[in-house]
């Protein structure tokens, strides 16, 4: 019960922050929808303009290119530092109703495979809940868990484990 309260509280906070930024974000979307104007002189085009032309999901200067949220051991609470990332992806889904994503929950190797599978699912679902509270549609987000079955790093130490405790966002078609 305590956990649920925390989740609702966190989601509420995210929603509060979100309403301000939603407008800025939608502006950016409009700018990006007219990229052809910068194309006539590609050789002299400044880097900034080039980034505008890029798919925001893959523009390294855009927060949408960041796809991983990292967790503490045995936790599925989204840390403050990842709120902007969750907000940005939620707004992208709001602005692009045809966009679909899968959130893949992962865990470090310690403990049971089944508990970690459930924990990874819980992490992915926590991200989905946060994004739907920010306006994304449930049908846009699928969640899966790989538990500890697909470690990014395979050494048996904390620096490795910390990389494996994460949720990854993958858009359809990627």
């Amino acid at each position: 019960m305590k956990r649920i309260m925390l989740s609702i509280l966190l989601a509420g906070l995210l929603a509060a922050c979100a309403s301000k930024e939603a407008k800025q974000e939608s502006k950016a979307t409009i700018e990006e929808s007219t990229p052809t104007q910068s194309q006539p002189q590609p050789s002299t085009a400044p880097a900034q303009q080039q980034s505008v032309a890029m798919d925001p999901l893959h523009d390294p200067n855009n927060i949408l290119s960041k796809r991983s949220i990292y967790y503490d051991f045995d936790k599925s609470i989204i840390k403050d530092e990842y709120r902007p990332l969750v907000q940005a992806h939620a707004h992208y889904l709001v602005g692009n109703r045809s966009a679909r994503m899968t959130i893949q929950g992962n865990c470090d190797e310690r403990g049971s495979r089944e508990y970690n599978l459930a924990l990874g699912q819980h992490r992915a679902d926590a991200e989905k809940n946060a994004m739907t509270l920010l306006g994304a549609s449930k049908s846009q987000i699928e969640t899966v868990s790989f538990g500890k079955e697909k470690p990014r790093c395979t050494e048996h130490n904390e620096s490795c484990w910390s990389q494996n405790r994460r949720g990854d966002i993958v858009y359809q078609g990627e």
Partner: protein
Amino acid sequence: MTFKLRKRIRASAAWRGALTKIIFLLLFLYAGPLQAALTIEIIGGGATQIPIAIVPFAAEQGLPQSITQVVGADLARSGLFKLVDTGGINPLPVEPGDIRYADWKARNADALVIGTVRPLADGRLEVRFRLMDVAKQAQLAGFSYNIVPAQLRPTAHKIADVVYEKLTGIAGVFSTKIIYVVKQGSKYELQYADADGYGSQTVVTSNESIISPSWSPDGTKLAYVSFERKKAVIYLQSLLTGQRTLLANFPGSNSAPVWSPDGKRLAVVLSKDGISQIYLVNPDGSNLQRITYSGAIDTEPNFSSDGKWIIFTSDRGGTPQIYRMPASGGESERLTFEGTYNVSPRFSPDGKSFAFIQRGVGGGFNVAVEDLATRQVQVLTNSLLDESPTFAPNGKIILYATIENNRGILAAVSSDGKVKQRLTVQSGDIREPTWGPFLKAQQQVPVLNQ
């Protein structure tokens, strides 16, 4: 008789603290694309070991498999027996009348196994064996088996089971099987093998992970979780026909299948309704029924062998702990209180205790056993990353997975913590062990009279 033998050995506990280190290099009997050698290593001996001489079976030279060797290896591996050297005794006894008991008393043998293998006219073999009490100079057991040569190894396991049960009073598990997953590079194989690691057979191969295999109570079917659909789904597969059916493929994760003791239901874990919760379902996928409503992670269900209880892991209290509830659902009771991470509960076959994985104060994940009456917890291992404990069907051994030298291996510990073994494959990682059930009694075996 059993009692007398054990008492006498206890009195002369010369073996206490002795560390036997016997290595058997076992080759898989069946050729396969991933043929690998399994090594079983005994790390510690029991406090008391019964000295027993296994006299080489007469006329077994030239056979594809030595019975003597398998019986001896089985008994030694249990940690409860000390093999007495049979060298230098000439002629070796074949029938009870041949035995010069003074020879065996001089070697401190309490028991003696003698036998023969005789070819029959129809191409089969007649295997005869007797277990003799050296002190009483009397027969404790005697059987004869008519078999085809391919049954030499299973017959040797049966003989070891008879010896083990006669001398310890506990059913032997040498004829049972284990299932486990081997990971070689990016390839996963679900395999089963005899309890000594021989005769491995591949059930299914996948490029994605396979976890949580579970035996049906009759030993003919498996349930397991596969990630081959890029998410966790549950399959059932017949070991007799190889036929496979999808049991659960709901949105989210489908996992942790385990059969009820009557084989009519399975407990599974689904996240389709929000968070991982426990459900019951028929083997054909019908009659799905949710039995936990905690709002927290509930997973790793396991039935008591009387079918009355389910123990499971839940983080409803803030950390993963072990709980018990009636098998149809209802009020649950927390069973673990030490530490912040207790997972993977498995009832002992007699239902009086359960094995689980406990994260210790030093951060290691170890196999532990809790007595349900006294709530006493005994930690049995001191490794770093143990997981997936599984009881032998006689309750005397717990098999589990662990990491050693950066590789996944299986290890076993006696339920009193005294005898330890390792089981490794030549290359790759081995994990997710589940010990199979006792199989139904075979046809009547002719008894050899004294």
